[in-house]
């Protein structure tokens, strides 16, 4: 019978010996993908090296290493991480933009100051991505901001992003504002469709909230 008798595991002797921080920082720039990824994981949550992890992101070609860098920064958490991710929303690199949105969602309401700033950014792409982050928030924080975007933003794609989030988390409190948006963009078939969906899903059959 070719099946081996009970396999013996190779236990890595050095599994628990911590690597000095300096070596880990060097390894972030290693030629090998596995080394870079492991170094990023090992440095996760360290506020003192957060800026280094952040600096590695723009040049990093490997998705797995990028994931580890983002995860490490999420673990740092709080406003420092939110600021880092907020800056990445303006990146030319789609992976960094999208990664930053997902990371900001993990920070939940720690990201409020950064998102509030981005919701007023002159760049509509940044505003659009900031709106998407609201999806992860409690309704008490998300709904007032969604309402403001729906009522005041001039850019169709930013409004569309807000309507998409409203379709998931909106309440009857948004229905009036959504109606106003529908009138504002009466020429846009997608906006009209989206608003109708969001209204239907937000309106409470048991009376307004």
């Amino acid at each position, binding site marked *: 019978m070719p099946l081996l008798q009970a396999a013996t595991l190779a236990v890595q002797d050095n599994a628990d010996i911590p690597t000095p921080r300096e070596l880990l920082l060097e390894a972030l720039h290693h030629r090998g993908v596995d080394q870079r990824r492991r170094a990023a*994981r090992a440095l996760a949550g360290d506020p003192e090296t957060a800026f280094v992890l952040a600096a590695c992101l723009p040049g990093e070609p490997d998705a*797995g290493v990028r994931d580890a860098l983002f995860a490490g920064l999420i673990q740092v958490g709080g406003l420092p991480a939110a600021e880092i991710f907020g800056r990445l929303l303006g990146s030319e690199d789609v992976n960094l933009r999208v990664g930053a949105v997902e990371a900001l969602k993990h920070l939940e309401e720690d990201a409020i100051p950064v998102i509030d700033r981005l919701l007023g950014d002159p760049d509509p792409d940044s505003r659009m991505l900031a709106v998407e982050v609201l999806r992860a928030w409690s309704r008490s924080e998300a709904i007032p901001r969604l309402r403001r975007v729906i009522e005041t933003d001039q850019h169709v794609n930013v409004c569309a992003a807000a309507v998409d989030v409203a379709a998931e*988390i909106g309440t009857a409190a948004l229905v009036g504002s959504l109606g106003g948006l529908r009138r504002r963009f009466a020429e846009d078939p997608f906006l009209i469709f989206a608003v109708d969906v969001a209204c239907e899903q937000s309106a409470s059959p048991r009376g307004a909230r």
Partner: protein
Amino acid sequence: MPAAMREIRGQPLTITPAEFRRFCEFFYRRTGISFGDNKRYFVDKRLVERIQATASSSFDIWFESLRRRDVTREIEQLINLFTVNETYFYREDHQLACLTGSILPEIVAGRRKGARVRIWSMPCSTGEEPYSIALYLLENWPAVDDFDIEIMASDIDTDVLRMAATGVFDSRSLHRLPRELVKRYFTSAGADGHRLIDAVRQAVRFNQVNATDVAAMRAYDRIDVIFCRNMLIYFDDLSRRQVVELFFESLVEGGFICLGHSESMSRISSLFTPRRFPEAIVYQRRAATP
């Protein structure tokens, strides 16, 4: 279509079409599991069950608690309600067919005879999966005699590991096995059911492992194929991603991982590349971009 009717404070609890859609989109986004309109009754019934079980006064309140990140237990309850989680021999055997028909031939191409092939079943539960792998290889892989095959099996639960090591199973566990296989590989264990013959039982090494224990996971390396079915779906996003990364690191380049039929890497990580074989879609650790 009959609505799922229960009462909460005298009001019948029904799920509106809009609530159904809202839930479905959320659940699909989180898990990749989708429901068509023909599943209304099936879904509504279970939603009502969960709304009641959590003492929520409405779908809206329950849904708000569901989507907040700190309440992942509720997602787990839902997944349990919506997926069938029994284990038995030759469950999802199209993946076993893929193992012998496509995966292993690719793995061993270019390997000398007598080389090692390492397969890891994690979580292994009460052992049906790793033992199924052993039986399937013996029965279906023409090259089974040409290589040294190691089958490792892990679970976080020591009770199930203990049961697995005994190699004793009831008839329900064996219901998909052809009679000849039962005769060939099992002996009677009286009222307890059937006992796997020693040669197969001893070919699987069982170990307790917590998938989030980095050191324990890193003890597994140079693995060729991992079976990780119906475990990842229960982790939160960040933990799940790290577990998958550990699996990735444990695999050889070109190694494979098989998930459960209602699972997809698309909700977890882009580390792996999907590969389509005639029998199944599985995921491969491709060589890294330098």
